[in-house]
């Protein structure tokens, strides 16, 4: 079992897909010689050449749109949007084109495009390089949305994203690139729409994504010291959402916290809370608690940045609230 970092897991998956399939190729800003702004695609130019590892101009609409066009011809492009903040520049192509060609054509077309992007706070890049915007895309019928939190999940989910016949937004978290894990020798594809129970517990379910999966695991370990048994569920795929796993977990624990780094208001957690109250109402012993960023852009000064985004301590407090109220 090799040990891979989250970053290496992305690179490994891209290489393996490109080795076995001439239809897979990469496009993005600074991905060739420089190896990507986060060094994810380092070394791929040397192995696959400039035709398949394509440096692009700073043109997000053209990057995504060219990916759409190549995908409609049956290729499986993987495009990189350097920061998820910059998906705003390609929003029209993602929302009006990639998501809808299949529908508007009455099922004639497929757009098997993967859009990789990364972001997140924790290193003071400021308000235009640190947002978490994954929830925007969950609101658009026709798109799939993936947010992997571990190297194993990166490999299995990125593989499935590349080979999905729909456009998939694949979110990576900048702070997670360095985390390491032993992974299987071969990639084991993970079906899109399957949650993972990261930790089993009896008293409270925490549904968390991205960096907050790791913060929630820390919070769960601390809660255990206080005699609270916490189950941590990572949906991994936000669209389609594995409602059943979440609901089954809440039916077991009777309490639910949802946690993500993105802004709480209208966040992905609001959707999870709605699903839980609707499908597990009779099991709930406390209101569903939400943990997310405060309602502000991500500030520069580290002390303010750390204040705005949630941490393990915020998850732990939310866990305590659910238990306190049900007591």
């Amino acid at each position, binding site marked *: 079992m090799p040990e891979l970092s989250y970053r290496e897991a992305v690179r490994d998956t891209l290489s393996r897909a490109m080795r076995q399939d001439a239809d897979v*190729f990469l496009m993005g800003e600074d991905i060739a010689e420089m190896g990507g702004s986060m060094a994810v695609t380092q070394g791929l130019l040397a192995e696959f050449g400039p*035709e*398949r590892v*394509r440096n*692009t*101009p700073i*043109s997000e*609409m*053209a990057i*995504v*749109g*060219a*990916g*759409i*066009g*190549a*995908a*409609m*011809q*049956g*290729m499986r*492009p993987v495009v990189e949007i350097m920061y998820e903040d910059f998906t705003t520049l390609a929003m*029209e*192509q993602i929302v*009006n*084109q990639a998501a809808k*060609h*299949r*529908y*508007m*054509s*009455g*099922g*004639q*077309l*497929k757009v*098997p495009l993967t859009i990789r992007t990364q972001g997140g706070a924790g290193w003071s890049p400021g308000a235009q390089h640190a947002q978490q915007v994954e929830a925007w895309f969950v609101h658009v*019928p*026709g798109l*799939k949305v993936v947010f992997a939190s571990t190297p194993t999940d990166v490999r299995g989910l990125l593989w499935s994203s590349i080979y999905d*016949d*729909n456009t998939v937004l694949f979110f990576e978290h900048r702070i997670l690139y360095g985390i390491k894990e032993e992974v299987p020798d071969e990639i084991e594809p993970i079906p899109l729409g399957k949650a993972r129970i990261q930790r089993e517990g009896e008293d409270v379910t925490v549904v968390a994504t991205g960096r907050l999966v790791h913060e929630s695991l820390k919070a769960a370990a601390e809660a255990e010291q206080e005699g609270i048994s916490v189950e941590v569920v990572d949906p991994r795929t936000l669209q389609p959402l594995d409602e059943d796993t979440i609901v089954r977990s809440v039916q077991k624990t009777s309490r639910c916290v949802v946690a993500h780094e993105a802004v709480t208001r209208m966040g992905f957690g609001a959707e999870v809370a709605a699903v839980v109250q609707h499908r597990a109402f009779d099991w709930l012993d406390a209101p569903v608690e939400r943990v997310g960023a405060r309602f502000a852009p991500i500030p520069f000064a580290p002390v303010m940045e750390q204040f705005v985004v949630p941490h393990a301590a915020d998850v732990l407090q939310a866990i305590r609230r659910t238990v306190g109220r049900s007591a």
Partner: protein
Amino acid sequence: MAKVESRRNAGLSRERLRAFYREMLLIRRFEEKVEERFRAGELSGFLHVAIGQEAVAVGVCQAMADGDVFASTHRAHAHALARGMHPNALMAELYGKLEGCSRGYGGSMHLYDVGIGFLGANAVVGGGLPAIAGAALAFKLRGEPRVAVAFFGDGATNIGTFHESLNLAQLWRLPAVFVCENNHYAESTPASQQLPIGDLSKRAVAFGMRSLTVDGQDVEAVYRAAGRALEHARSGKGPVFLLAETYRLVGHYVGDPQVYRPKGEVQALRETQDPLDRAAERLALSEEERAAIEREVEELVEGSVAFAKAGTDPRPEDALENVYA
């Protein structure tokens, strides 16, 4: 090469030009029927007809080869018909029927027919251009001698996708042809209020792109220029900007009162810039010949309405199909 040149410089055969005239007349009568049925309250949504711009559609589409692909705009009926879509499939789509080219999911602004290489009309101005660059990239990566063609208007040259797509296509020498139908209005806004330059080919030249300008009311000239553009792209020399100067002889949408156009402009243009009159004159069509083409075309158009009305309505719950592959 010399042979190709001489053939290119010779006029079209009368038979070919007659076929082009017939295609243009089919589009004209189809569009007039669309206006009529809309006013009769039979058609839903938003309709944009291409009356006046038939020669661009026919000239370019007739020059394309099997395997070439194209994307269109909100004003797409002409491109669809000119590339070989049956009027029945088009009219059925406008009536929202399952027999329509997009099975009722698209409508006038979202026509598709993958079988003829039609990758979609697009209701977002400039929305289809990046995907045409992408299709051309796929052809290049796979070594296929195919060309991807984008139709768009003068208004689209002001939007970001135009600039990003042309830049990328030229940078990567992609086999694409960008057909700009300059009808001098972006919806209601005249060139003087949206374009700081008169010659739009400068925008392509700025990217180092080969540019050709053609009289868009002359189907023969459009056909020849499109043939050169497609050949250039297909031979690996890179994309071409094909600027067709044309005129919209109707409003932006069916029902547009056109308060923004100078009095008499449309009438004057109809008298001097009708592409059908041009072709008819060159053909020196006899009255009988003209009447015969009219009869054939009108039968097709009437038939398309009958076909559409007899078509199958989707079930409401069909709306939940085709969201995902």
